[in-house]
């Protein structure tokens, strides 16, 4: 393979080929159902609809935030993007090229790397920090000495002095330091996209802020694109250019930060935002915006998945699945109330003539 000759970005065109307007990632109809044990031998085969037809784009150079309750399919989406689990259906375009067809999986993997939530579990306890970072380049044919030297550069870039940290083992580092190492490892292959799966959620607030700033610096310096998964809406508001709200394996709403945080159209997004703790005591929320747990993804509700908990539920909501409708250039929502002529009483009227 040509990777032996020049290990990094053999074809510098990957990721820059389609021009700046071409989304870096276009996911279309991503679907992953996990089979679960059915009761008894002859029971119907059941599946957990972890990710159930998800469409989204990640634009070049942006940070796309993904928010939603636990179990809504955020992490599964990330793992599908990484091809760590095989998608049942759907296609993945990386800069206009179909992953697995015109763009081989091995090349795609060098372009997309991931930082996991558990900083300890994501580092091999038996490898020193420098060995962990140098592993991936060595797999792609970089000589060991060069890979180690590069690992030291990266450690320096993430704010860890190589002289002190390179030879240490993961358990000798703090959580924040370990997460910096994980970021350095993700950078080692010079990827275009980094998926941050709750990457700062387990850190102290002060450390979290440092790591977030580090991520912003690295993004600027290396021209990275981030997919930022989090359940902390304040962090998402700080980090992200666009936000995708997921509910039970589907996209509820996707839009720019301003539209989602300013004028969310999906009642679930609105409820999620209302759950953010307020700084102003006079705006304290006394009523919980949503009650109960999300329904079981093995047996999701018919029609709109949110209808069991939605304050505006009507007949149409349990009958038909609302499509992810584009409301403006900046915002799309999957709610009958946002689609003209959907049959919901709060839906906007169909054109001017009807009114």
């Amino acid at each position, binding site marked *: 393979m040509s990777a032996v000759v020049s290990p990094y970005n053999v074809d510098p065109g990957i990721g820059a080929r389609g021009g700046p307007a071409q989304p870096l990632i276009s996911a279309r109809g991503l679907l992953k159902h996990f089979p679960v044990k059915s009761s008894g031998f002859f029971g119907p085969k059941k599946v957990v609809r972890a990710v159930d037809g998800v469409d989204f784009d990640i634009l070049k150079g942006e940070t796309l935030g993904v928010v939603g309750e636990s179990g809504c399919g955020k992490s599964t989406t990330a793992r599908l993007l990484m091809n*760590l689990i095989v998608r049942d259906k759907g296609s993945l375009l990386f800069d206009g090229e179909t992953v697995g067809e015109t763009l081989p999986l091995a090349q795609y993997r060098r372009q997309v790397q991931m930082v996991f939530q558990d900083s300890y579990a994501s580092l091999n306890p038996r*490898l020193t920090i420098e060995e962990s970072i140098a592993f991936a380049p060595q797999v792609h044919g970089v000589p060991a000495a060069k890979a180690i030297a590069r690992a030291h550069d990266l450690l*320096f870039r993430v704010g860890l002095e190589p002289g002190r940290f390179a030879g240490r083992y993961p358990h000798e580092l703090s959580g924040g330091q370990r997460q910096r190492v994980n970021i350095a490892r993700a950078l080692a292959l010079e990827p275009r996209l980094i998926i941050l799966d709750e990457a700062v959620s387990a850190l102290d607030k002060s450390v979290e802020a440092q790591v977030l700033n580090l991520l912003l610096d690295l993004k600027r310096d290396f021209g990275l694109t981030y997919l930022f998964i989090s359940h902390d809406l304040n962090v998402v508001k700080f980090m992200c250019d666009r936000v995708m709200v997921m509910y039970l394996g589907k996209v509820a709403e996707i839009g720019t930060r301003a539209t989602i945080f300013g004028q969310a159209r999906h009642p679930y997004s609105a409820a999620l935002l209302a759950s953010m703790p307020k700084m102003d005591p006079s705006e304290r929320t006394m009523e919980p915006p949503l009650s109960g747990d999300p329904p079981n993804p093995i047996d999701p509700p018919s029609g709109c998945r949110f209808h069991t908990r939605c304050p505006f539920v009507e007949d149409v909501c349990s009958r038909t699945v609302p499509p992810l409708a584009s409301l403006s250039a900046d915002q799309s929502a999957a709610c009958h109330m946002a689609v003209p002529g959907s049959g919901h009483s709060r839906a906007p009227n169909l054109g001017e003539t009807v009114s």
Partner: protein
Amino acid sequence: MAVIAADTVAPVPVILKSPGFWRGVVRRLCRDPVALTALGVVVLLVLIAIFAPYIAPYDPSKGSVIRRLKPIGTPGYLLGTDELGRDMLSRLIYGARLSLTMGVIPVPIAFVIGSAIGIIAGYAGGIVNTLIMRTIDVFYAFPSVLLAVALSGALGSGLTNALVSLTVVFIPQIARVAESVTTQVRKLDYVDAARASGAPARTIIRVHILGNVLSPIFVFATSLVSVSMILASGLSFLGLGVRPPDAEWGLMLNTLRTAIYNNPFVAALPGLMIFVTSVCFNLFSDGLRTAMDVKS
């Protein structure tokens, strides 16, 4: 993407190397008096076995009808004599050779084969795992004593056949432990990260799996040494292992059982040796388990 600019490269004077994993294990082991004592006893037994001809006061197979079943403490025969008038001390010393051989040899062989099977099954997962592990379960269904006896019986008596059957008995047990540890490690994020980097399976197993699964399997295998000794003694007791007049603790226990009423203490001596050795192996493997736990 620009390679990192030259001015950002930090000067790298000295890299502080952490002491390696095994160094830490040895250091922690040295602080454990029980494990150290057990290890000392095991080492002593091995030395006794190696230097048996120099230590043993008499020929272990030379008996005499006039001094049969002397009690412990008889002048000249410190631990008495057996039913054929052979010196017990000499026979116990020589017995250590065969008993330790039969206890120790099958375990490393089974360790290598069982680990390989278990790691492959655990890493592959899915249908491969099911096929391998269900086949293993067939062996697992038999009690290990029964399986060892059945295999030895089928192969015929003798030292080599006994070793082979003990190895076969231990492979499924080690494979099962290896499979469960590998399955756990495989789910960890660092394996996912390695897969995401595009590394082939054999590289991931070599770099990321092996180092993290071998020590728990190794600890389990150490504890099998005592089981192996007891099973080997059992085989000899049944006449499927070593044949008389060779000295082996299990066999000695068998031949002395007729003397249990006349001279119970002498008859119990080989059993005591088996007990002490297996307890020491177990204590050492417990200590090793604790010492290998990085978080403690």
